[in-house]
């Protein structure tokens, strides 16, 4: 995709094709000879795993669309017919619904990896920002998809999320009506959500292309967070990382299969096996697990507009991380102070997720969860807007190794000893 090419056409046909559409050259340079830091660990295999997840969602989704009916009167029954009548329909649907959860599991690991090793720092700012865009598109796609089975959670989830727009002064209710195509969530809404749910994965695929293109300009970051200095620091992508990616992808697929075959409704909500009823809200509305931290922030603020701003701001904040982090060192391995704040941040995210999964007035050991969510939400913001800029300035990082090769191979690599 970028940089000098080492591709040599081997046959007359390859020479002919290379002069017209250099597709083999592209594949050779990006997936075969691409120089990759030799020290990438397990956490760097999730990019490939995510590509796999996207492919699974698109393939099973195209199949499901052959049997699904986007009509408020028929949608619920058509999903039941997929489960009971369509040959292997249950498998397609369980792969698709659990696939969404696996997709988010992988993307969260991928994002925390990027945060820990400073992969968003120069010159990789755009890779990170394009990644945030992909994450946003994923959330929109997942939301549209969750509405389609037209169960109680589908309907009320759609109602709550579209009502977020009514918090916008003056034009808010007009935007909500425009989204619904009616006075409330209904048949018109279901149809347009189906249309968008089918469209967005292909947009995601295109943006993933940009993500990988941008990645292949500076190349991979690595757990040490130092730049590649010589060819000794790298190995060719194939076979080293094709094999490593394939191994961890296999483990990931086993986990995926455990859910699909042994606990297919683990991530689901039983209320969604009841058909949508616009007159009865289920006692506890819970979004899918991957949205719970943001949902907890929304609920912890006793003001509608502020709640929506805080929730949206939590995602928008991610875009600014490359410039909020003032440290010259990328990897938390060499940032003793930041490392502690990072793990506290991970705990805050899990705490927010837990608060979001419980009812509004719940308490643990006498502490109202709404206050846990407030403190964790405050820390979420403080981590990015205060801790990142300040710690980067006051922290004394540990001494960085001279090179990747020296760190991996020891002094025999020829680099000067410390």
């Amino acid at each position, binding site marked *: 995709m970028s940089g000098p090419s080492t591709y040599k056409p081997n046959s007359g046909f390859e020479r002919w094709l290379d002069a017209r559409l250099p597709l083999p050259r592209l594949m050779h340079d990006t997936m075969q000879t691409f120089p990759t830091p030799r020290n990438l660990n397990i956490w760097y295999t999730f990019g490939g795993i995510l590509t796999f997840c996207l492919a699974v969602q698109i393939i099973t989704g195209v199949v499901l669309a052959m049997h699904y009916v986007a009509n408020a009167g028929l949608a619920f029954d058509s999903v039941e017919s997929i489960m009971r009548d369509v040959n292997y329909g249950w498998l397609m649907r369980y792969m698709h619904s659990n696939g969404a959860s696996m997709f988010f599991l992988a993307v969260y690991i991928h994002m925390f990896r990027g945060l820990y090793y400073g992969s968003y720092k120069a010159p990789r700012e755009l890779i990170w920002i394009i990644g945030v865009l992909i994450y946003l598109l994923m959330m929109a796609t997942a939301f549209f998809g969750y509405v389609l089975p037209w169960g109680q959670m589908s309907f009320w989830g759609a*109602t709550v999320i579209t009502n977020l727009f009514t918090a916008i002064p003056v034009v808010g209710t007009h935007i909500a009506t*425009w989204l619904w*195509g*009616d*006075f409330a969530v209904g048949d018109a809404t279901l149809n347009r959500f189906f249309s968008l749910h089918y469209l967005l994965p292909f947009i995601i695929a295109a943006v993933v292309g940009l993500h990988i293109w941008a990645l292949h300009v500076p190349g991979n970051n690595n757990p040490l967070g130092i730049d590649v200095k010589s060819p000794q620091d790298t190995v060719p992508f194939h076979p080293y990382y094709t094999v490593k990616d394939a191994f961890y992808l296999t483990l990931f697929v086993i986990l995926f299969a455990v859910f699909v075959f042994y606990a297919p409704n683990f991530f689901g909500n039983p209320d969604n096996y009841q058909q949508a009823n616009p007159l009865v809200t289920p006692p506890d509305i819970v979004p899918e697990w991957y949205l719970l931290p943001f949902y907890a922030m929304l609920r912890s603020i*006793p003001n509608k507009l502020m*709640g929506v701003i805080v929730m949206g701001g939590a995602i928008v904040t991610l875009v600014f991380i490359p410039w909020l982090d003032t440290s010259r060192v990328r990897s938390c391995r060499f940032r003793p102070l930041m490392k502690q704040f990072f793990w506290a941040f991970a705990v805050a995210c899990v705490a927010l997720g837990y608060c979001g999964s419980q009812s*509004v007035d719940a308490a643990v050991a006498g502490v109202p969860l709404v206050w846990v969510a407030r403190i964790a939400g405050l820390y979420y913001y403080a981590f990015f807007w205060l801790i990142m800029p300040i710690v980067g300035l006051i922290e004394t990082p540990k001494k960085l190794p001279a090179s990747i090769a020296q760190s991996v191979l020891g002094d025999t690599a020829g680099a000067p000893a410390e």
Partner: protein
Amino acid sequence: MAWPFIDQMNPSSATLAAGTAEIDLSAIQPGQQIVFKFRGHPLFVRRRTPAEIAAANAVPVSSLPDPLAENDNLPDSAPATDANRAIKPEWLILVGVCTHLGCTPQVSTPQMPEGDYGGWLCHCHGSQYDTAGRIRKGPAPRNLQVPVYSFLSATRVKVG
């Protein structure tokens, strides 16, 4: 050129026209709420007891988070007194949509209380309404909306 592509998503004239409903009050007992469907939303019709009306009247309007009546039958600036929330005090007719994020609040009865104000509690995000459907606590910004309605007879109401 962009407008047709934007406006096609708005409700069609056919959808907008299907906006009135006639309801029958005769079977509703004092203290009871019946939910009808109106424009795709729940419509709360609650026959209030004298105690519930008295409780609503006892609240000073100045202490309310939303001091406006939010009544489509009155000017926008009408204050949220109990008299401005219902044409006949006994019959409270409200759009059953929480003004926070659109869930349907649960009705409170003396036997099964929901929240601290005797009206409604929204389980989604904890908004509490009093016996006049006015917001008292929680994230919802406005009182439950009173739709346009009129009494056709003592027991028939036209809504919308």
